[in-house]
């Protein structure tokens, strides 16, 4: 791939510092028919998540006698991408992201509280500009909390990576395309434990751990916004 300068005078092409997140907006209860829902924006990336359940799981042979199960679907709208329309429906990338998203959220949920039942999590990316899977996870985490699902912690997620020779957080689509490495990361912020980790690119172990630190710090910031949104939504009126 051709080289492209992504850092000029220490700033990124959209004017951000390396460790700066894009403008973040979060709303809960955006889909009234869902048990819980949320819309999260990271810059130009927009994800909407709905949660249905816990509800009965059929066919019965799918039921787990001691725990509830989580199903997760990550999907990109055909109009969500720049350039050519994305053909609708699950492709290989979406199927993999659905799986790792489920694995990223499961550690937060008390699955033993609803044996034989299912929680369905649906994530729609309606506008994509990089970091879509982590934006989806942030939305899904809020939607689960809004649905009253018993949780150990929220899940906060962000992307980090290496562009030019700089370690950065919250990559845009353009930065992702030209990055030397990128990591999708999610954690339980108050427990300091990792629930999603995917990386591709080339990094030394030292760079990798610097990026983990950056991701950890950034997830704490995201966690504060998530908590604030939930508190505002559910504050007891006087």
């Amino acid at each position, binding site marked *: 791939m051709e080289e492209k300068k992504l850092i000029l005078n220490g700033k990124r092409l959209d004017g951000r510092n390396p460790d700066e997140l894009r403008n973040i907006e979060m709303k809960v209860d955006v889909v009234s028919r869902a048990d819980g829902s949320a819309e999260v924006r990271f810059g130009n990336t927009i994800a909407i998540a709905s949660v249905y359940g816990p509800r009965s799981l059929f066919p019965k042979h799918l039921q787990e006698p001691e725990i509830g199960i989580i199903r997760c679907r990550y999907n990109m709208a055909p109009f969500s991408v720049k350039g050519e329309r994305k053909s609708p429906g699950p492709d290989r990338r979406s199927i993999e992201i659905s799986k790792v998203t*489920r*694995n990223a959220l499961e550690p937060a949920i008390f699955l033993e509280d609803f044996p034989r039942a299912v929680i369905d999590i649906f994530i729609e990316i309606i506008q994509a500009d990089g970091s879509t899977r982590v934006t989806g996870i942030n939305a899904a985490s809020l939607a689960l909390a809004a649905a009253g699902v018993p949780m150990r912690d929220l899940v906060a997620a962000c992307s980090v990576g290496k562009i030019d020779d700089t370690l950065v957080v919250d990559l845009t689509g353009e930065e992702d395309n030209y990055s030397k490495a990128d990591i999708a990361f999610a954690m339980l912020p108050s427990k300091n434990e990792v629930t999603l980790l995917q990386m591709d690119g*080339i990094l*030394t172990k030292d760079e990798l751990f610097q990026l983990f630190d950056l991701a950890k710090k950034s997830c704490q910031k995201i966690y504060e916004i998530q908590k604030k949104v939930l508190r505002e939504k559910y504050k007891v009126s006087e």
Partner: protein
Amino acid sequence: MKEYALELIEKGKRIDGRAFDQFRKIEIVRNAIKSADGSARVKFGETEVIAGVKIGIGTPFPDTPDQGILIVNSEFSPIASPEFEAGPPGEDAIELARVVDRGIRESKAIELEKLCITPGEKVLSVFIDIHIINHHGNLLDAAALASIIALLNTKMPKVEGDKINREEYVGNLPIAHLPINISVGKVGNFLIIDPTFEEEKILESKLCIAVREDDKICALQKQGSRQIKFDELEKMIDLAIEKSKELRRLCQQEH
């Protein structure tokens, strides 16, 4: 069986008597498939996979007009396990192929720029097809090892216009790096490598780590439904870097 495997690990033992950081017996048959341009049949204990490489002619991706194409596909054939069903690949097969793909692609193992015929129009494609023959755990590491070994013995068929002539081979596929995938499983405070089928059932989580010969990390994928602590991450990555050398030595033997 599940409880037994867990009980053993808590006592510092494994179901088949191995150390936590010990592979099963690894057997490699290079060029196992005569009809493929490159291939390997690899066993990790009872787990057995075949990777076959076919070279084709294709159109380059618009963002890499002067590079060949790499496509990794995997099939969990119903012969390999009572849990596998016929039909389109499920999420585990797709994930496996995509993680193997990332290790090879991101390490720049194949010199794809040498596979260009006409920039923007015609390039060679490298297809790696991974067939699972017997699922007895740790499919990913076995599949990744079979793939890189298959690439190492891939011969380049002669290109004549828009056709490939397999009567005549012109040298080997250009390979620049050797990525090795090591999956480290976590159960309680214990870390194990090369889990068997029974052990995979009790793992809380697993981190798949692709390491290059310069010890750089080229792919990571966390699997499983439980969380991992940061100090555990570091131990897992250190263990993978160390163990990758053992498998890389196997690749580099006669081929």
